[in-house]
């Protein structure tokens, strides 16, 4: 119970503090890959839902890129109407179990909630997660029952999605619920994009959550074709020739950036994508039962400060590292990761090596990583954007021993489809250019959204983009509003 929580708002009513979400204890969870946050109980959810003021003009909704009717679902939940709450959320969000877990709520819905002024916004994400999980746990027939409200799928109205991340899944959910036949083509052997190969199991359980959401789409007659690579196995022209009426490109921005410093190709230096893909998609945490190996690091260093860096660091801890350091150029205040992830990482023992930047990796005669030279940084004058950018402290470098380095400094657009489709107009940075309102690319009836348009962003922004494009596709295929 913090001091702010005790303060009285303008109305004179006391605001109860946010209900905490129970977690696996840090000492235990670093030894397993099970989910860290355990979710609310019914009692906790009801108590938290009752904190919502049911604002006439709910600010929270404006903070949500897919406009979940937040006030309404929380109202239903407070009254014990779980089914109603689920339907309300699902009316605009096809992946509530995912969003409740991974949205950066502090910058989105919860950041906009009126109670945030007192530092105690309604825990919208946790409630959304509670509703999704509890509803999902119900009998499968209930899910099927929800279909009766959807029109029958018209096999002639066919739309193809390339890539199966949250952007494409949203398009598939929106269109299939409106009677349009969607086929999703995915290059990898599993469906879900970053949700399956990037974000770790302990933050987003694959079979319990992602697969269930995908399964729900299957019951809406969405087809998923895996191992099918746009630009290699098929082209966009092939799709139109086969009778697809529109195409949505959601191939993400997964090409890893490296730092461009000496020693970067030593064995033991990985991109975060490789490290996380081996562990998540390849289930390397269960090696050798599963065949994909991963490097065992003792002294691990991770470069970057976003969610990806947090995920890599916490994964390394769980795989048995003795020490894990996150090396970041700025200070703790500028770390772009979700607050909850940063807190969880620190609780688990991840060390923050702040104001430091790698300048060279060193190896032994076999080409294996043994250490890194770091440059001490300081924050300089604010630049045009108002951010204080880091500048090196002249002559101040130091060494750290490290045998596993994970580079998480961002990504670039996935290249294959773009190279194979030269007609597609790209931005200066190499991402696909779209009409902001419709999501349409320079090729008629070809739409795009998510990281391949914006560069690496968030699940919910990718979903927002998917929703925009899907609305336009529906309008073109079926007319009206």
């Amino acid at each position: 119970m913090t001091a702010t929580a005790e303060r009285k708002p303008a109305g004179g009513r006391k605001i109860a503090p946010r209900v905490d979400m129970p977690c696996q204890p840090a000492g235990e969870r670093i030894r397993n890959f099970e989910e860290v946050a355990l979710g609310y109980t019914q009692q906790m959810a009801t108590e938290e839902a009752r904190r919502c003021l049911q604002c006439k003009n709910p600010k929270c909704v404006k903070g949500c890129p897919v406009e979940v009717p937040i006030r309404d679902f929380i109202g239903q939940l407070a009254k014990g109407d779980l089914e109603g709450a689920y339907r309300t959320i699902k009316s605009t969000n096809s992946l509530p179990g995912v969003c409740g877990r991974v949205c950066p709520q502090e910058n989105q819905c919860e950041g906009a909630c009126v109670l945030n002024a007192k530092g105690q916004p309604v825990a919208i994400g946790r409630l959304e997660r509670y509703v999704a999980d509890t509803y999902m746990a119900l009998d499968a027939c209930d899910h099927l029952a929800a279909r009766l409200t959807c029109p029958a799928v018209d096999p002639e109205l066919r739309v193809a999605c390339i890539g199966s991340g949250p952007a494409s899944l949203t398009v598939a959910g929106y269109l299939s619920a409106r009677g349009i036949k969607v086929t999703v083509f995915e290059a990898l052997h599993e469906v879900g994009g970053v949700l399956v190969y990037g974000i770790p199991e302990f933050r987003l359980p694959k079979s319990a959550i992602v697969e269930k959401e995908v399964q729900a789409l299957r019951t809406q007659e969405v087809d998923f074709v895996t191992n099918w690579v746009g630009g290699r196995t098929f082209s966009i022209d092939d799709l139109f020739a086969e009778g697809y009426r529109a195409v949505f490109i959601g191939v993400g921005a997964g090409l890893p950036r490296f730092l461009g410093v000496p020693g970067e190709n030593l064995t033991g230096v990985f991109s975060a994508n490789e490290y996380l893909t081996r562990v998540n998609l390849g289930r390397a945490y269960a090696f050798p039962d599963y065949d994909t190996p991963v490097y065992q690091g003792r002294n691990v260093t991770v470069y970057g400060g976003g969610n990806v860096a947090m995920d890599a660091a916490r994964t390394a801890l769980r795989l048995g590292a003795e020490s894990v350091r996150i090396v970041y150029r700025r200070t703790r205040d500028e770390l772009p990761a979700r607050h909850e992830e940063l807190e969880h990482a620190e609780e688990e023992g991840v060390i923050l090596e702040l104001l430091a930047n790698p300048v060279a990796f060193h190896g032994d005669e076999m080409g294996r990583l043994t250490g890194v030279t770091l440059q001490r940084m300081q924050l300089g004058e604010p630049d045009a954007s108002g951010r204080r950018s880091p500048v090196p402290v002249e002559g101040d470098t130091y060494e750290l021993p490290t045998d596993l380095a994970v580079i998480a400094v961002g990504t670039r657009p996935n290249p294959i489809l773009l190279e194979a489709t030269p007609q597609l107009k790209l931005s200066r940075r190499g991402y696909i250019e779209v009409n902001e309102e419709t999501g349409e690319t320079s090729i008629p009836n070809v739409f795009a959204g998510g990281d391949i348009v914006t560069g690496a962003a968030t699940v919910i922004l990718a979903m927002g983009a998917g929703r925009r494009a899907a609305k336009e596709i529906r309008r073109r295929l079926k007319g009206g509003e």
Partner: protein
Amino acid sequence: MPCKILEKERLIPGQTSKLVIDAPHIAKKAQPGNFVILRVCEKGERIPLTIADADPERGTITIVYLVMGKSTALLETLDAGDSILDLCGPLGKPTHIEKAGTVICVGGGTGIAAMHHIAKGHHKAGNHVVAVIGARSKDLLLFYDELSSFCPEVLVSTDDGSFGHKGLVTDLLRQRLETDKTVSEVVAVGPVPMMAAVAKTTEPFGVKTTVSLNSIMVDGIGMCGACRVSVGGETRFACVDGPEFDGHKVDFNELRQRLAAFKPQEKASYDHHCKCTCAGEK
């Protein structure tokens, strides 16, 4: 979508086999130089294998593999009629093929099979293809008949002299380059030391040399950087920028070291496999 194995031929029993796989969608698009990534079973690793041949009419592709460790050993347990769980392709940039005169295609070990598809492409483009292939001994030599069926010349070397020249493929290559000034390109596919030696052999002659790199891969679509190689001092991704590169610019030493990255784990995995080769798990 699982893909069915139509034919299996044990080229060198227990070591190397050839599979003809039903995969019309890949066969339709496959070009010389392309590869596939496959996963044998649910718990399996994604491994890259070159498309050694493709028949778009029949809808099949051919792969030839050497049993190296767990994944290829698992693949070896499959027979005609069985299916491969995941098969993804065609991946990689196709070989750059143009009518250029004489092209020498060098293959070593299992690389001969992969080289065969490239040689065929050069032959179809109207080039005079000289195949130079090597193995430790006569019974380990692959694809001699297939290559002979369209290459006007097939030169062979074996380590023990049981067939053709006794020695290395690079001996044959050097002899040829010394006497034949019409050679416009040399292509080499095989073990890393062989490709490095080929590049070194051709360098003084200034002949364009293309090598097909087999770095470790995970996704094969440019998303992980596992396959990165240094070419002319720049980092390139073998799966999307290659797998073929200018042999005179490749840092073979780095490639060799990176290929050894998972040695202890690969051994553990293989031992685990041998200990519990339960058919039920495949």
